[in-house]
C-alpha cells in the first residue's frame, strides 16, 4: 500500500495498486488470490488422482504453473544461464540413466529420457509464457522451446501428444515472427526501414515457413515408405522395438530387440518366502503360434463371495496394483484367498483356468490382499480347481502338425514308466538344459513351437512354456499355458516390486489331482537375471510419486492430538517462511521500498536490461536519470513517463503509453549506444 501525503481536500487520492482500477489495461499483480491458488492446486491434485494417467502430465504442469507465480522472480533472467541449466539437467538425466549393459543404444534416445526432456521443456515453456503474458508477443526462445517439445514428442512416437501440441506450436510460431526481427542485433537495417519493407520481411519469413512445411509434408508423402523402411532398419539396430510386458494375448511372433519396460505393475507388502509366479491369464488352445482364447473371447463372472476365500486366516500379503491397461488381478496358483480392499469387485473366468479380473474401476491403484494357505488347509484352493470333463480334452489337445515332433520327444524325455510328476519334472529339466534362450526371435515360416522343439531357433519364455505344454500333453498329462509376472525385486524394506518387464510365461500341469507349476525357461531367461538393475534415479522418481499416497495413508491413521500438533508445526513453518521472506526483502540488492506491482516492475526491469545491453552499469543507489545523463531525449522521456506512472497518480492510459514507448526503445537499441557514448563524453 502506498502512503499518500496529500490532504483529502486536494483532489482525489488514488493509491497506486491493483485495487480500484476499473478500465483499460490493468497492470495488476499476476499472482492469483490465495483462495484461487489453493483451489487450483486442489483441482490439479484431484486430476492427478482421478486415475487417468494421461492427465498426470497436465496436472503436474498445472501445479508447476500455479507455483510459478511464486518463484517467478527468482528465475534466472539471463538466457545463457537458462540454457546452461537446461543442458546440465539433461546431461544429468543421461548420466543417471540405466546402465547400457545390454542395450547398445545411447541413453539420450531412450523414450523415457525424451519424455523427461519434453516435460522439462514444457514446464519451462509454461513458465515463460506466464512470464511474458501481457507483454506482447512471446520471444523467440519460446518458439525454440516449443519446437524442441514437439520434436521430443514425435521422436518417441507418442502421437497422442501431437494434437495437443500442434495448435499452440503454430500460434506461438506466428507470434514469434516479430520477435526474430527484433532480436536480430547484427542487421538493424530493416528496423529503420519503411513499413512496406518490414512487412515484406515478415511476409518472406512466413513464406519460408510455409514452404518448409509444405516441402516437408511433400517429401514425406513421396518418400515416406522408403524413409520408413530406412527408419525401421535403423530402429531395428539402434532402437528398441516392442516393449516387453503383459498383454491380453500370447503370440509367438518375431521380436527384435524388445524394450524391457520398467513401468511398475504391483507392489506387494508383507510377502514372505522367495520369488513368486503370479499368474494372470491362462490359455489352453494353441494354433500356429497363437494361444487362445483371447481376452475378448473370455467370459468373466462375478466371483462367488466365499469361493475366493475372504475368511481364510493364513498369512496375508497386501498388494497395491498400478494400472497396467488390462485390469487383471495377479495371484499365485496356490493362494488360499484373494480379498479385495475397498469396493473392488473381482470377476473370474472359470472356463479358462480361473483368470481373475477386477470389475470396471477407474482408480489408478487397486488394492487387494493375498491370503496364503496354512499347511492344513484344503487341497483345492480357489485357483487350483481340477478340470471338469468338458475341460479335460482341451488340456490334452495337440495340433496335428506338432504331434509327429512332440510325441517321440516326450516319449524319449519322459518315458511312461515314470510316475506323472517325475515325467513333468523331466520335461522341465530337458527344456531348460537343451534349448537356447533369446529375447530376439525370428521364427520364420512354419509353426514356431515345432521349429523351437527341433532346436532350429532360440526362444523366449513363451516358447519354453508352449513347448513344455505340448510335451506334457504328448506325455498324457493335462497342461495349460500361463502368462503373468515373475516377482523377484525386493525393496530395502522387504516389499516386492513387480514391473512390466517382469512379465513371464510358464506351464501348469495337472498331476496327482492338482495343478503344478512347470517353469521350463532356463534361469538366464528369467526376468530377474535377464535385465539390468533398476537405476537409482528411477527409484527416487518412483518413491517421489508414491509419496503423496504414503503421506495420505499415514495421515489418515493419525490421532486427533497428532493432527493438532502437525497443524501447529505447519503454522510455525509458515511463520518461519514469512519471516525469512521478510528478511529477504531487506537483503542487499533488493530494493527495500514499497514495490510497484509486477507489471511496472517488469517494465523497469526491461528498461534496465536495455541500458545494460548498451553497456551501462546500473547501480541501485542512483536514479536512472543519473545513469543516463541528459544525452538521449527518448530515454529521458521514458524515465519521465515511468516516474509519472510510478510516483504520480496512477492512470491506465499512462501505463499503456509507457509500455509502447519502451517497446519503441527496445526496437531501436542503437540509440541507447549513442546515448551512452554521449553520456560518457559529457562525463
Amino acid at each position, binding site marked *: 500500500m502506498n502512503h499518500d501525503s*496529500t*490532504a483529502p481536500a486536494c483532489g482525489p487520492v488514488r493509491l497506486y495498486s491493483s485495487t480500484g482500477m476499473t478500465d483499460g489495461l490493468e497492470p495488476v499483480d499476476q499472482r492469483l488470490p490465495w483462495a484461487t491458488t489453493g483451489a487450483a492446486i486442489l483441482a490439479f491434485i484431484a486430476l492427478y488422482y482421478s486415475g487417468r494417467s494421461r492427465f498426470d502430465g497436465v496436472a503436474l504442469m498445472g501445479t508447476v504453473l500455479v507455483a510459478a507465480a511464486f518463484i517467478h522472480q527468482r528465475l534466472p533472467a539471463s538466457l545463457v544461464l537458462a540454457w546452461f541449466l537446461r543442458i546440465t539437467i539433461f546431461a544429468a538425466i543421461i548420466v543417471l540413466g540405466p546402465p547400457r549393459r545390454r542395450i547398445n543404444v545411447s541413453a539420450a534416445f531412450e523414450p523415457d529420457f525424451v519424455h523427461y526432456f519434453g516435460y522439462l521443456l514444457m514446464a519451462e515453456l509454461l513458465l515463460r509464457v506466464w512470464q511474458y503474458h501481457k507483454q506482447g508477443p512471446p520471444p523467440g526462445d519460446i518458439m525454440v522451446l516449443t519446437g524442441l517439445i514437439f520434436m521430443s514428442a514425435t521422436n518417441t512416437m507418442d502421437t497422442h501428444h501431437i494434437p495437443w501440441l500442434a495448435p499452440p506450436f503454430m500460434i506461438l510460431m506466428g507470434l514469434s515472427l516479430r520477435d526474430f526481427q527484433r532480436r536480430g542485433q547484427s542487421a538493424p537495417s530493416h528496423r529503420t526501414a519503411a513499413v512496406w519493407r518490414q512487412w515484406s520481411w515478415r511476409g518472406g519469413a512466413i513464406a519460408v515457413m510455409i514452404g518448409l512445411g509444405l516441402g516437408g509434408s511433400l517429401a514425406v508423402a513421396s518418400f515416406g515408405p522408403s524413409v520408413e523402411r530406412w527408419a525401421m532398419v535403423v530402429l531395428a539396430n539402434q532402437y528398441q522395438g516392442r516393449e516387453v510386458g503383459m498383454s491380453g494375448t500370447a503370440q509367438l511372433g518375431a521380436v527384435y530387440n524388445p524394450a524391457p519396460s520398467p513401468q511398475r505393475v504391483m507392489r506387494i507388502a508383507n510377502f514372505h518366502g522367495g520369488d513368486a509366479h503370479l499368474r494372470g491369464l491362462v490359455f489352453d488352445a494353441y494354433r500356429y503360434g497363437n494361444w487362445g482364447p483371447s481376452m475378448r473371447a473370455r467370459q468373466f463372472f462375478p466371483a462367488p463371495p466365499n469361493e475366493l476365500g475372504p475368511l481364510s486366516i493364513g498369512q496375508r500379503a497386501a498388494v497395491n496394483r498400478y494400472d497396467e491397461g488390462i485390469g487383471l488381478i495377479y495371484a499365485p496358483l496356490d493362494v488360499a484367498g484373494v480379498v479385495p480392499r475397498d469396493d473392488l469387485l473381482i470377476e473370474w473366468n472359470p472356463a479358462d483356468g480361473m483368470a481373475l479380473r477386477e470389475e470396471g474401476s477407474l482408480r489408478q491403484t487397486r488394492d487387494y490382499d493375498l491370503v496364503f494357505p496354512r499347511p492344513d488347509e484344503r487341497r483345492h484352493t480357489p485357483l487350483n480347481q481340477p478340470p471338469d470333463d468338458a475341460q479335460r480334452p482341451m488340456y490334452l489337445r495337440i495340433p496335428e502338425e506338432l504331434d509327429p515332433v512332440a510325441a517321440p520327444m516326450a516319449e524319449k524325455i519322459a518315458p511312461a514308466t515314470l510316475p506323472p510328476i517325475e515325467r513333468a519334472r523331466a520335461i522341465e529339466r530337458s527344456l531348460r538344459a537343451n534349448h537356447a534362450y533369446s529375447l530376439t526371435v525370428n521364427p520364420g515360416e512354419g509353426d514356431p513351437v515345432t521349429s523351437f522343439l527341433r532346436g532350429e531357433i532360440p526362444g523366449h519364455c513363451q516358447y519354453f512354456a508352449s513347448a513344455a505344454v505340448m510335451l506334457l500333453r504328448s506325455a498324457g498329462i493335462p497342461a495349460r499355458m500361463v502368462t503373468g509376472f515373475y516377482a523377484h525385486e525386493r525393496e530395502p524394506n522387504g516389499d516386492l516390486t513387480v514391473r512390466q518387464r517382469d512379465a513371464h510365461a510358464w506351464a501348469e500341469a495337472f498331476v496327482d489331482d492338482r495343478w503344478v507349476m512347470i517353469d521350463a525357461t532356463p534361469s538366464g531367461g528369467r526376468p530377474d537375471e535377464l535385465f539390468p538393475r533398476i537405476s537409482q534415479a528411477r527409484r527416487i522418481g518412483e518413491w517421489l510419486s508414491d509419496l503423496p499416497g504414503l503421506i495420505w495413508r499415514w495421515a489418515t491413521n493419525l490421532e486427533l492430538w497428532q493432527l493438532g500438533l502437525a497443524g501447529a508445526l505447519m503454522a510455525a513453518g509458515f511463520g518461519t517462511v514469512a519471516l525469512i521472506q521478510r528478511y529477504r526483502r531487506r537483503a542487499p540488492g533488493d530494493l527495500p*521500498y*514499497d514495490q510497484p506491482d509486477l507489471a511496472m516492475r517488469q517494465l523497469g526491469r526491461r528498461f534496465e536490461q536495455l541500458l545494460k545491453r548498451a553497456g551501462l552499469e546500473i547501480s541501485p543507489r542512483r536514479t536512472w*536519470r543519473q545513469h543516463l545523463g541528459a544525452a538521449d531525449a527518448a530515454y529521458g522521456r521514458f524515465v519521465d513517463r515511468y516516474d*509519472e506512472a510510478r*510516483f504520480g497518480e496512477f492512470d491506465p492510459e499512462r501505463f499503456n503509453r509507457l509500455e509502447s514507448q519502451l517497446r519503441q526503445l527496445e526496437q531501436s537499441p542503437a540509440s541507447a549506444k549513442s546515448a551512452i557514448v554521449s553520456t560518457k563524453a559529457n562525463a
Partner: protein
Amino acid sequence: MMRMQTPADLTASPFLLNVRRLEENLATVIKGKLRATRLLIVALLSGGHALLEDVPGTGKTTLAKSLARSIEGTFRRVQFTPDLLPADITGSSFYRPREGTFEFREGPVFANVLLADEINRTSPRTQSALLEVMQESQVTIEGVRRELPRPFFVVATENPIEFHGTYPLPEAQLDRFAMRITMGYPDREHEIEVLFSQHERHPFDALEPVLTTSQVIEMQQQVRAVRVDRSVADYIVRLVEQTRGDARLRVGISPRGSLSLYRACQASAMLSGRDFITPDDVRELAIATLSHRVILDTKARYAGARPDQVIEEAMEKTPVPR
C-alpha cells in the same frame, strides 16, 4: 546540477506562469544564477526560510532584495551588527507620557519578507531572537503573543564562518532555515553582462512587483497538495537515517530536516510542472536542504570532511526506489 524540465503545458498552469514571471523578473537583476534563484523560489514556496551563504560581493543581498521587491508586500531589512539587540528586531513598547500608556512599536520582523543581512555578524543572543519568529511566525513580547503577517519569509545572508568578525550561527538557528543556498562567482559572460547592466543605473531600481501576497499564499497551498509516494518518503527518511549513523557527525539530521526536504521536493516538483515528487527531486535538493544541518566532529573537520560531501556520500549509500 539543476535540471530544467519544461513541460509542454507551461503556459497553461497559472502556477507556472507566476513562477516564470518571478524568475524573469529576478533574471533582470541577477545574471547567470538560475539555480540559486530557483532554489530561493523553492524555499519561498515550500514555506521555509532561506540562508544565502557566500563570500562578500557575489550578489546575495541583491538577490534577496530583488525577491522581496518582486512580491507586493511589506519588506523590511535588518543589517545585523555586533551591537544589535533582540528588541531591535522584534519591536518593543514605548512609554507615552502624555497618555500615560505603553505603546507597542513593531520591529522589522512584522513584514512579509525579512532580509536579515549578514546574520552572522551579530551576537548569538540576537540571532536567537529569530528562533520563535522563524518557526512559528509569531512574536511574544512582554508576554503578549503577536501574529506576523502571512506569508512570512526570512532571507538571511551570511559570510562563510571563517571570515573575520562573524559569530557562527547556533545549531538550533541553522536548523530553522529550510535551505542554505550558495551563490558562487558568475562565469565570465555573465559577469560582463553584470557590468554592462549597471552601466547607467542599477537594474534593481526598475524592478516592479509581479506577485501579490495572496498569490504567494495560494501557491504555497498548491505546493502542499503535491503527491508524495510512500516509497519516496521512505527514501527521504532512509537518507536522513544514514546521516544519523555517520561516525563523522556530532549531530545528524533532525526530523525537521526531513520535513524541510519533503516540502522542498514538493515545491521543486511543482516548479517542474509535476504533481508528484520523484527520487530525482530528493537528490537534487538534498545538499541544499540538509548540508547546513549536520555538524561535523572536530576530528572529521580537521581531516578535511565537508558537510555537503557527507550528504553526497549518504546518497551514494542509500538505495533509490524505482
